[in-house]
């Protein structure tokens, strides 16, 4: 226990050191470049303070931007879970459906969410546009992971239960669902990361003033590179935090499984 704690402190301080080195390098490059479009860490800190206290040109603080964006992301992510998990389970249990509709499902998977934006603008309105674009991005990871985890359930476990006279329903609820749950959680985590990364794409739709992606787009039009970087860092750090929290929860729930992968 003691050495474990020591190890943690060590890793933490190493991280702190590499962060400091990175910021110093950044200072250096900014000074060397001396370009008005290459913001130094100090300018970014200033920009961040401005975003926290005053807000952007329209007086919207970073918290309001984040709040709006989080609502959009979680709605899209929620829709993806609601459709993707049961869909994946169903198509995993009846693989012939997937095999026969592959020609439609698979190409859809490779269309980037941004490509859907023109369609979303024309066919949908308001909040549903954001939800749709984020849903498009986050649906497939959940769906495909669930589908594959069902297919990869150990056949012995299913057959043993069957031999002992278990009904189909029993096999599904007591064997397949528990066995696939860790994978589904992993798929959900990947999806959440992807849907958060989609926020800029979704907020390109325009028409609204609030949202962290909007902040980046607005600031880039005014060549306020410091605010652009503030937005980027906020997205990166929040995405990282969401992922870490999810990993913690996963480890807690699935303590019986040794390894939880980071990707």
């Amino acid at each position: 226990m003691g050495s474990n704690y020591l190890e943690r402190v060590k890793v933490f301080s190493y991280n702190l050191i590499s962060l400091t080195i990175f910021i110093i390098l950044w200072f250096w490059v900014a000074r060397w470049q001396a370009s008005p479009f290459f913001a130094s860490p100090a300018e970014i800190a200033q920009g961040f303070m401005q975003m926290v206290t005053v807000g952007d040109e329209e007086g919207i603080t970073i918290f309001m931007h984040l709040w709006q964006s989080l609502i959009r992301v979680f709605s899209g992510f929620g829709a993806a879970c609601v459709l993707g998990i049961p869909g994946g389970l169903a198509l995993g249990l009846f693989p012939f459906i997937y095999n026969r509709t592959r020609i439609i499902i698979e190409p859809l998977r490779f269309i980037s969410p941004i490509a859907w934006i023109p369609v979303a603008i024309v066919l949908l309105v308001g909040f549903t546009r954001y939800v749709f674009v984020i849903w498009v991005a986050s649906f497939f990871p959940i769906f495909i992971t669930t589908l594959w985890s069902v297919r990869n359930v150990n056949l012995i476990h299913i057959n043993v239960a069957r031999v002992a006279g278990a009904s189909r329903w029993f096999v599904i609820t007591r064997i397949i669902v528990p066995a696939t749950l860790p994978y589904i959680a992993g798929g959900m985590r990947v999806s959440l990361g992807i849907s958060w990364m989609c926020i800029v794409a979704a907020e390109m739709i325009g028409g609204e003033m609030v949202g962290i992606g909007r902040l980046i787009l607005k600031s880039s039009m005014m060549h306020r590179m410091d605010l652009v970087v503030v937005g980027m860092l906020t997205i990166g750090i929040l995405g990282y935090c969401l992922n870490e929290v999810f990993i913690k929860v996963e480890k807690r729930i699935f303590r019986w499984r040794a390894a939880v992968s980071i990707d």
Partner: protein
Amino acid sequence: MEEKINREKYKTLGYNVLTLFLFLAIWTLAYWLIKSPFFPSPLMVFNAFLELLIHGDIEDVKLGMHIQQSLWRIFGGFAAACILGIPLGLLMGLYGRVYDSTKVLIEPIRFIPPVAWIPLVIVLLVGYFRFVFIIWLGAFFPIFIGTLLSVRGVNPLHIEVPKSFGASRFYIIRNIVLPSVLPEVLTSMRVGLGIAWECIMAAEMIGGERVGIGIMILKYAQLIRMDAIIVGIIVIGIIGFGLNEIFIFVEKRIFRWKEVVSI
């Protein structure tokens, strides 16, 4: 046995074609029901496809040119991601401490979406490098993280046994770590290629050029020509699907000794 597998294959193919027709029929039905100028029928989309293929778009750039240009950009970014991601992943997998100590830098950057980099890329880079950079950002992390995890996942038994026989570190890396991670590296390359292809829209939003499949969609989005937009979307989906299938085929060929190749 062979014959049975073949028959099964044809059956699946037949069902896939059937599903495709069913999908087109439902689409046509929806077109009749909605009757909006912004909701084209499959036939209109097909006409737009022929027009784009033979006459080219509003600036007389043919669809083939768009695709060729986009593929060229993708391969630039994808190659850069492989060249940097695989050695770096191997290195950080072998020296886990390096990754643990720089996690605070690497992980948040992973969650910054490629689109968010566009404003910075526009001011800091020029020409072809802009596209390569954006696509590199998308493809780098799956390849890097996939390689890193695969090195960490090498069976310790396979490493300990030669070690106890006095094998050198170099021997172990060359003869044990590399061969056992290769299949997973290839899988993460495939995932990276898929994401690189999805990033094409984001990359081509940079603008300044007139050729590229993403640029074609953006051009027609401004004209609200939904039929041409959908042609672009479908072309992106089918090419992504095709690239993935080719990659899976190659993987299966090379790693015939490995039973399962996951999607």
